[in-house]
């Protein structure tokens, strides 16, 4: 059966694929060495030196943006996967156990969720020193309660199904049923949530690097490039525009991909 194409899935998928490709290519090749300082070429506009110009050290903006994509994902992907794994384990467990433990854990999750990632990063910065490790942990901590809630709700939905009752009736315990029936049947919801949280993580990473709490210079990051651009805002506005567009396109792509996947995986929601 041929269905009407899902535009969110197509556009989001294309943008996300482009982001991944750029990040992968940047690991092997960039037009210039992104950290090479070339003072005679400083603050050149787009096309005057390189495709997107140069910054206040004469570094090539395009090359920095490309490696910035890889660095952004290097923070966003592990932090979301860490948060998703922990959160899903907790969420699936409390959906199986129920009772007072469930209520208590949900309360704690609410409090942790009220803690903005930037605030955790500042606190962890005091503990670990500001840097990529503190950034990954801060974003992961923010993601745990999100996945606790989502996976608990999804698991409860699956628990009410007849085939789970059938599996229980042959005498299998909650842990075994969770592994073979519950988790596989909530994979779709989790994949959608991971995609959406990746978008938020890219956005948060940019903010943390802007504050100097993420990727450490001279390793390029989109947030740091924006922070540096501020000093030369009226002289070289292109330095402020390109990295911001990169963040926005990456986030837009991941969000659209998440929306598209949700529609594709759950046809009941398609009318929305």
């Amino acid at each position, binding site marked *: 059966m041929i269905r009407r194409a899902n535009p969110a899935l197509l556009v989001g998928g294309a943008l996300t694929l482009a982001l991944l490709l750029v990040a992968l290519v940047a690991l092997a090749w960039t037009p210039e060495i992104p950290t090479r300082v070339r003072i005679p070429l400083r603050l050149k506009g787009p096309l005057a030196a390189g495709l997107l110009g140069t910054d206040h050290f004469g570094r090539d903006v395009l090359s920095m943006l490309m490696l910035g994509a890889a660095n952004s994902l290097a923070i966003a992907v592990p932090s979301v996967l860490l948060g998703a794994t922990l959160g899903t384990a907790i969420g699936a467990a409390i959906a199986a156990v129920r009772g007072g433990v469930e209520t208590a854990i949900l*309360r704690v999750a*609410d*409090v942790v*969720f*009220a*803690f*903005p*990632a*930037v*605030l955790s990063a*500042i*606190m*962890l*910065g*005091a*503990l670990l020193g*500001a840097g990529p490790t503190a950034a990954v942990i801060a974003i992961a901590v923010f993601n745990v309660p999100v996945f606790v809630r989502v996976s608990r709700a999804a698991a409860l939905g699956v628990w009410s199904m007849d085939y789970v009752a059938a599996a229980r009736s042959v005498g299998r315990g909650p842990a075994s049923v969770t592994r073979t029936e519950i988790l596989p049947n909530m994979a779709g919801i989790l994949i959608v949530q991971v995609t959406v949280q990746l*978008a938020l993580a890219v*956005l948060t990473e*940019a*903010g943390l690097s*802007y*504050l*100097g*709490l993420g990727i450490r210079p001279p390793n390029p990051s989109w947030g740091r490039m*924006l922070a540096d*651009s*501020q000093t030369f*805002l*009226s002289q070289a*506005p292109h330095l*402020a*525009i390109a*990295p*911001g567009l990169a*963040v*926005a*396109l990456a*986030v*837009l792509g991941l*969000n*659209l991909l998440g929306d598209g996947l949700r529609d594709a995986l759950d046809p009941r929601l398609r009318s*929305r």
Partner: protein
Amino acid sequence: MIRPILLRIAGFALTLLAVAAAIFVIVDVLPGDTASVMLGTSAREDTVAALRAQLGLDRPAPIRFLGWIAGMLHGDLGQSVTYAMPVGTLVAERLAVTVPLAALALAIVAILALPLGTAAAAAHGRAPDRVIGIVSQLGVAVPNFWLGLIFVLVFATGLNWLPAGGFPGWGAGLWPGLRSLLLPAFALALPQAAVLTRIVRSATLDVIGQDFVRTARAKGLAGRAALLRHVVPNALVPITTILGLQLSFLIAGAILVENVFNLPGLGRLAYQALAQRDLVVIRNVVLLLAAIVIAVNAAVDLGQVALDPRLRRRR
């Protein structure tokens, strides 16, 4: 009605105490010797010892924690080492910037998102819905601090309408103060307004699909009247929950946007305190920001009980 309120206030106090304990462990206990963390590795031994005595670090951690809590109850948050002034005074000064900034941003979020989201739902599937959908999808993706930079580029250095940063203080008058908060508030608000617009739209669509709305329509209530009388009040409960949660994003955003615009607010203070390793300031500011978020969400929770009679009986 009184009992649930009291229970919630007790729960709020307990939550704050737990959060304070967590912050204390992360900022004060785990880093090891706080005094040498604050002074850096090159500090002389006697300077470290002096600071250790000044901060009372010679006492065991549980006693220090109780001392912090007891001081807080007396309104004494301790002394900032870098600013050489009481943390309480420092925080009060900064709150006078951050609270108006967040309030202004929250107002912009609500003023934009409520009508846009409702309009999109009312025009479900037609052109206005699609346009609002695309614009809000773009808005969600834009980093607030980047929006701040672009605003500076356009409205400050370009058109020269508003200041590019800094804060004259409320002593300079209401308008000069407000003027310097306008660009930061919009930068902070627009991405969150996009988030809320999408939520208002789907909450409204949920209610529109319910039987009582069909009944109202069947009784002959015209489209707009049914929307305002029956749909909007019922959609408000999920919307206020999200609006409360958005405050935590606005506060996180304030840390960034205050840095873009050089505003002497609480977020910038937290960030600067990290750079200066002023752990006394960090733990108090982080706790205060967390307390604001938790308090607002508790208040939203209570407000919903007033908004929705069904929640009263269930709890």
